[in-house]
């Protein structure tokens, strides 16, 4: 395990480094004058000077990249073009809102998706199973912004319940949660469908496996067979994709934050694009990528922890 951990951490560091390098050098990767790329054709001289100074565009590229990576490693993501505030401050505020959104929606996806899948698998091909399968496939195909817009139209606008905009006050948990519920549901819908389907498939696979047959042949109680033996094996694939799910939720949060006007990373990035405020855009994207990479790492590790087969394989190699 230690060796695997080392390897996996090394991989993660390499990817993070590459991602940071990419974001540091992206203005130079794309053909054209970096300043014009950053600020567009209508920039004032003052803005240009400001950008050159802030981004160190007059330095050699290597220096620019190295200093960004070095500063980023110390938590300094540069300064906002417009207000000169440190980007790290803007980003850290937004990160809280985005993470709470992503985690609540992940919780909803897992908490609703897995039971739904188990329910469908208990009686394959029954009416219940068919209904569940239609629901999950339509959920899977719903883009988060479509769901978000429908939820917005239905609850705050048509019914006048639940807040339409903002993140609420974090110091008042109930108020914060009320603001979170619609955006989180909008994001979760796809993954509820996905987990339901995945769990159904792996559950059916496990139930047909040899060791379940053996458990029955040895007179183990059906509840033990289904919920202790089968479920534990059937959720393993779901855990394996938790990281991917979180990344996808983070991506979708861009849309949902726009729709519900939440001051999260996605909205921060979008506003930065509108205002041609590159340091803020770069900072927020870097944080999203980091969150995703770390989430993948954690999912991978927990998956390996739950499945003893992989745990030991890794020990040996």
């Amino acid at each position, binding site marked *: 395990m230690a060796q695997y951990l080392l390897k996996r951490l090394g991989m993660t560091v390499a990817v993070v480094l590459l991602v940071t390098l990419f974001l540091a050098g992206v203005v130079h990767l794309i053909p054209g004058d970096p300043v014009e790329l950053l600020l567009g054709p209508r920039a004032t001289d003052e803005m240009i000077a400001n950008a050159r100074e802030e981004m160190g565009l007059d330095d050699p590229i290597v220096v620019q990249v190295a200093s960004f990576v070095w500063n980023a490693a110390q938590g300094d993501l540069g300064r906002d073009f417009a207000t000169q505030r440190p980007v790290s401050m803007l980003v850290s505020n937004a990160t809280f809102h985005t993470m709470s959104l992503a985690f609540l929606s992940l919780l909803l996806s897992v908490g609703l998706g897995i039971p739904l899948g188990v329910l469908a698998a208990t009686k394959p091909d029954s009416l219940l199973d068919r209904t569940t399968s239609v629901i999950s496939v339509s959920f899977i195909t719903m883009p988060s912004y479509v769901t978000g817009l429908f939820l917005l139209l239905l609850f705050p606008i048509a019914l006048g319940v639940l807040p339409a905009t903002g993140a609420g006050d974090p110091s008042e948990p109930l108020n914060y949660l009320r603001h979170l519920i619609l955006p989180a549901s909008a994001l979760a819908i796809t993954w509820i469908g996905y987990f339901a389907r995945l769990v159904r498939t792996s559950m059916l696979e496990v139930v047909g496996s040899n*060791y379940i047959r053996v458990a029955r*042949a*040895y007179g183990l109680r059906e509840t033990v067979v289904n919920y202790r033996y089968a479920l534990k094996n059937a959720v393993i694939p779901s855990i394996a994709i938790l990281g991917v799910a979180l990344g996808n939720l983070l991506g979708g949060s861009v849309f949902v934050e726009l729709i519900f006007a939440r001051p999260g990373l996605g909205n921060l990035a979008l506003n930065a694009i509108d205002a041609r405020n590159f340091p803020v855009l770069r900072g927020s994207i870097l944080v999203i990528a980091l969150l995703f990479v770390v989430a993948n790492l954690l999912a991978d590790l927990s998956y390996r922890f739950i499945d003893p087969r992989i745990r030991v394989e890794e020990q040996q*190699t």
Partner: protein
Amino acid sequence: MTGPILSVEHLDVTYHVRTGSLPALRDVNFELQRGEILGIVGESGCGKSTLSSAVLRLLPANGDISGGRIVLDGDDLGEMSEAELRALRGDRIAMIFQDPLTSLNPTFTVGSQLVSVQRAHRGSLTSGSDDLRERAIEMLTSVGMPDAHERIDYYPHQFSGGMRQRIMIAMALLLEPEVLIADEATSALDVTLQAQILELLRRLRSERDTSMLFISHDIGVISEICDRMVVMYGGRAVEQGAVRDVLTDPKHPYTQALLGSVPTKERRGQRLTTIPGRVPSLSEMPEGCAFATRCSHAQEVCRDPGPTIVSLPGRDVRCLVHDPDSDYDTTAIDTAVDPTTPAAETGGWLAKRRSVGEVLVDASDVEVHFEERPSLTTRLLRRPGDVVRAVDGVDLNIHRGEILGLVGESGSGKTTFGKALLGLAPVTGGRVTYDGEDISGLDQRQFRGMRRRMQMIFQDAHASLSPRRRIGQLLTDPYIVHDVPHQDRIPVPELLEMVQLAPEQASKYPHELSGGQARRVNIARALALRPEFIVADEPSAGLDVSAAASVLNLMKDLAGELGLTYLIVTHDLNLVAYIADRIALMYLGRLTAVGPTERIFDHPAHPYTQGLMDAVATPDPGRSQTPHRLLVPGEIPSPKNPPAGCRFHTRCRFARRDSCLEEPHLDHVDDGHMVACHHWREILEDPDAAERAASPDLGYAAEESGR
């Protein structure tokens, strides 16, 4: 306490599918006596597995018992409620399944699974979990697991296949069941492991008097362990009786053919019996005798509904031939085709095989070492990766026109050696010459010219045919690859005819063929370029006995007609005893013995040879039932880290600290018989030495400790 412990009375099992009802079992009738081991034998599709599921009342959802009764010690299983059945399973009837690798839950420790089974039946009222755990450790120890108190907390995948099957047996015996069902319990194991497990079951029977239903497709294994046997065909029990009687005098034409198609040493020089056609699928099962469509004795009356069981002294047979009241005309039996006396080889096959020519393939000190792909960390730390010594110094000559059998357990490196001769595995040391030319240094392109002269028949007949190409394309590919002009090609229909396939097969895809047909296509492909030398890897693997027999007949015929040289790579000692002129035995990348087949069999001089010969299960009434005395204990070590000195010493009963830590070399015994053992003289001079050297419980001492 008399009467049978289990009786299956006129059992019918039906599967319901969309297209209708399929009769899986029809009128199956037998009794298992107390303390008896009853064998159920039959080819795939005969209903053996349905039978074992039915006895536990665990048929798939679409199957049900549509007639007859199953009675366990006076209790009718058909009248039991689901709760009563659950209480019975594992407690009164326990089952050992075929595949030890998938039979245990991968995410729970062995201990917790063994405790769950006890708890399901004994509850926690009578005993605390410490007692249940103690009981599990005790059982694991008694089936031969060393350090059971420690390894009980391992997960299943940390054990080898053989050890997992022992765990399954421990689970089965936990609650001291009245009946033990072993469903293909040894089929997935290597010969030496199979012998160990059979020995274990035999010991348990004598210690505990457990009654056992032993289900297998392998008539050899059945005859090793069972007292009586039931032969199944097409969902019906066609013959039953004492094992010795059935083997010496099979009454049913199917039993006769089945026995006649097993290759053995005794059948050298004879043709194997083959059964025409295939087992009919359940949907086309005939009303009358299920075997009538393939039976050489079949007459019109055989197709009528029936036949019923005919009771002869000590024997039940379901065949009209033996029913004096039937309309069957016994005078019409054509004795010429009686399968009990297999036809002698036509065309003086054996004589031809004697005219062996000069050395064709000369392997000297061949090594095939694979470096396991080093992981990133090992590369960063500049540590060398593991080296797998698949073949580690093999000297072997193959003479033009001979059939050489290369035998070993899985992991012995035999297949890799065969591939190395053909340039399909890298020769990392030593030299291979073919017809005097050094071929070990050739790269893929230089080798291409040689490919026309040497070919391989791969183990998995289906997997070795490119799945999206038609048979016709597959058979012309060799010519396109080698730019063979049209006039030199053998037309596809002719190639198909050579391997006894119909020309229509050319337009089919590989997955549309049966295992036997796919194997024939492989053979035809190998022959297309008219090679001299063929390496055949497990030519009978995955085939039913009868299909295997006809492939072996075909290979022999072609050897005679085309003057081919074969290297037959196999784990099956019976097969080489039947077909090979010479035999080479391989263990962990090294040869342990080489010699003419008769010499090897009549005077085995290597302990490993002795062990393999003792382990092999042969349907030979003469030797059956004798306990294994020369059992090879433990399992084959990893080729990554072979034992020092003589590689076999960790499993050898002659191993001695002073001599065996030194590597033995192939010594010439006599008449081309070579042995790599320091003690071969003792072994040959004193045939009983091996027995004396055998300590009774050695079998478990050297067991490989986990993976």
